[in-house]
């Protein structure tokens, strides 16, 4: 009996439609992919931060310490699960999942390489879906802060809510620029419109007089704020709020927050790559960018952006909450709005 026959038998035996099984398999693959990405990014961050900060970073577990993050993850999973007496139990348990789910679901529409092989599902509303899904994170964070029954966590959750909602506005405006240029909301179409010449990529396209590059910069600044990175890491400001909204969490629930945070970091950089840096395409036409090459190019670009974010994270101090709000509403918002207006004029006149 061949493997195909075995699979068919099994499917018939369960009596569920094939789509359900395909969906489940894809879900598991995405979850594993996400976990691997997060472990890799965390390890690279620790090595990189160590390099910047005159230390060595992880060294002892595995060759050059590569297994350190795996060990940490196992340790977190094995820890005692503490629910504070003051906590609102049901919500307290639900909050990490509410934060984790959007981070997980955002992977569905991102083309990590040449579609259809490296994109789980191309939605014709792709980028809108991502924006909608990731804004659910706020609910989870506020819930976590509120349900902890701790004053510091509550303040952290409230701050985070204000910050994330504020920065979503200029972020959405910046995202609309490549959408206007390519005339599509699908991630795949936006990337394909840019093609394999670096001067046609949205960020570097001269025919929009650098306006798309401004949108790219605005998007990256907002991405810093959306993923709670320094200089915008107020929700978890260690010195003021101890650890912010997740201070009462331990063990596996904390691991979910951690996973979501670094996964979100990767996702925003992946979206920036798709929207502004030509997705999976090579920068020049004679370079190979089909099959696994496309995955390589995509990862290269995304990890470069991740590195820039981590570099900023290890260098700068933190801004204050009112300065943060002022920056979003008084600087980024008008710039993004004007930028979008001019780009839409150019697109309409052409």
């Amino acid at each position: 009996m061949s493997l195909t026959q075995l699979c068919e038998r099994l499917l018939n035996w369960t009596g569920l439609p094939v789509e359900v099984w395909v969906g489940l398999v894809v879900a598991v693959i995405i979850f594993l992919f996400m976990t691997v990405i997060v472990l890799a990014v965390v390890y690279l961050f620790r090595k990189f931060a160590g390099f910047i900060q005159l230390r060595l970073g992880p060294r002892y577990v595995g060759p050059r310490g590569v297994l350190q993050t795996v060990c940490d993850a196992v340790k977190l999973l094995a820890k005692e699960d503490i629910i504070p007496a003051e906590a609102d139990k049901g919500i307290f348990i639900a909050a990490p999942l509410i934060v984790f789910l959007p981070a997980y679901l955002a992977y569905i529409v991102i083309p990590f390489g040449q579609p259809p092989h490296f994109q789980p599902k191309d939605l014709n509303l792709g980028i809108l879906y991502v924006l909608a899904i990731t804004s659910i994170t706020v609910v989870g964070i506020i819930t976590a802060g509120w349900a902890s029954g701790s004053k510091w966590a509550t303040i952290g959750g409230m701050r985070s809510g204000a910050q994330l909602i504020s920065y979503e506005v200029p972020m959405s405006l910046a995202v609309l620029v490549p959408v206007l240029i390519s005339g599509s909301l699908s991630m795949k179409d936006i990337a394909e419109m840019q093609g394999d010449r670096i001067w046609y990529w949205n960020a570097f396209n001269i025919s929009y007089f650098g306006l798309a590059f401004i949108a790219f910069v605005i998007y990256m600044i907002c991405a810093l704020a959306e993923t709670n990175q320094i200089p915008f890491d107020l929700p978890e400001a260690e010195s003021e709020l101890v650890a912010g909204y997740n201070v009462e969490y331990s063990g596996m629930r904390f691991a979910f927050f951690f996973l979501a945070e670094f996964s979100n970091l990767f996702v925003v950089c992946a979206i920036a790559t798709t929207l502004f840096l030509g997705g999976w395409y090579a920068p020049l036409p004679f370079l190979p960018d089909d099959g696994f090459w496309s995955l390589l190019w995509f990862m290269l670009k995304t990890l470069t952006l991740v590195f820039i974010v981590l570099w900023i994270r290890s260098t700068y101090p933190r801004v204050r909450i009112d300065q943060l709000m002022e920056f979003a509403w008084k600087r980024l918002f008008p710039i993004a709005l004007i930028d979008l207006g001019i780009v839409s004029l150019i697109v309409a006149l052409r």
Partner: protein
Amino acid sequence: MKRNSDSGIGSNYPWHKQRPVIEEPRPGEALRADRLIVNMGPQHPSTHGVLRMILTVDGEWVVAAEPDIGYLHRGFEKLAEMRDYDGTIFLSDRWDYLASMSNNIAMSLAIERLLDIQVPERAQWIRMLVAELQRIASHLVFIAAYGLDMGAMTPFFYCFRERERIVGFFEALCGARLTYHYVRVGGVAADLPDGFLEELEKFIPMLQSGFDEIDELLIYNPILIERTSGIGIIPPHLAVSYGLSGPMIRASGIPYDVRKCHPYLFYDAVDWDVITHEACDSWARVWVRSQEMRQSLRIVKQVVERLKEMPAGEVRVKLGRSIRPQKGDCYVAIESPRGELGIYIVSDGSGKPYRVKIRGPSFVNLSIAPRVLPGVKIADLVAILGSFDLVMGEVDR
């Protein structure tokens, strides 16, 4: 009038009666949220030790702040009464554990004043050398910790790299890295080891470039300036009336430095400036400390030159097995990294001090916190409190 007595924390302290009365919200402010009493510390990561602040916050605003100290009280003033004079020096290591050398010097100077003895010249220069190196080391810790408070992780490591080298020099002097017990009554414990000054001369330019790096990374960082300027303003008259000293008062524009105003050791024989800043805010306090390190380095350079000319020789006066000063009392103040560190000793003619009183600069500097903190944001609270450079070992003693 509603009093802030529902906290239940520390309400049986007598000074509770002097707690600032919080006004009821005025009619126009009816929309404001309830006030929250938050306990900051003693295990909070940015109170630098075991300081506990009882905060009343209204949203992001601090309405009242009340320091609660004593978590690190070890009773050094009383302990000193039970030891002979030599034995009090090692206690002084533990007051301000970031500036043990300065404490040693203060205690030794006070006892020497009581004994009325002259310390060998070389010992005095060595004392100046270690005092200034200690000041640099202590200010480096301050800047490192302040950077951490402001969320900048990296400058911490750069500051500690430099401090680690200074601590290495101290280790070469006396074998200890934190509690040195190097400066003793009548001089210093031992002369400089061979090659010490040469190594130090090699280190000075490295330290200079280290300061430039720290300036670039943190002190003149636009985000830090934005964050810390204009907050925690202590006007000069307030600074004087609260008895502040050290970088705190100099950042309020008053050029008061014990080394300049009441010179001890050979501070009048070297060339250096008192750093002041007119801004009176948190950033000024950070800036003053960063510039003071450069001045200290200037002093270190001159002292090294003097010491190189001097032949190695006597560094300690021979005193008897037990020290018995005349009946009397004296007050000696030095400029420790945190301000005016004063020692008042009463001697009754026996081998042990009758009474020792320590005027700790951190303790006095902390006293202005309840005056400055109300009306600031929680985020600024850390930026202001951090700029006081508190060492709880010396506040509580």
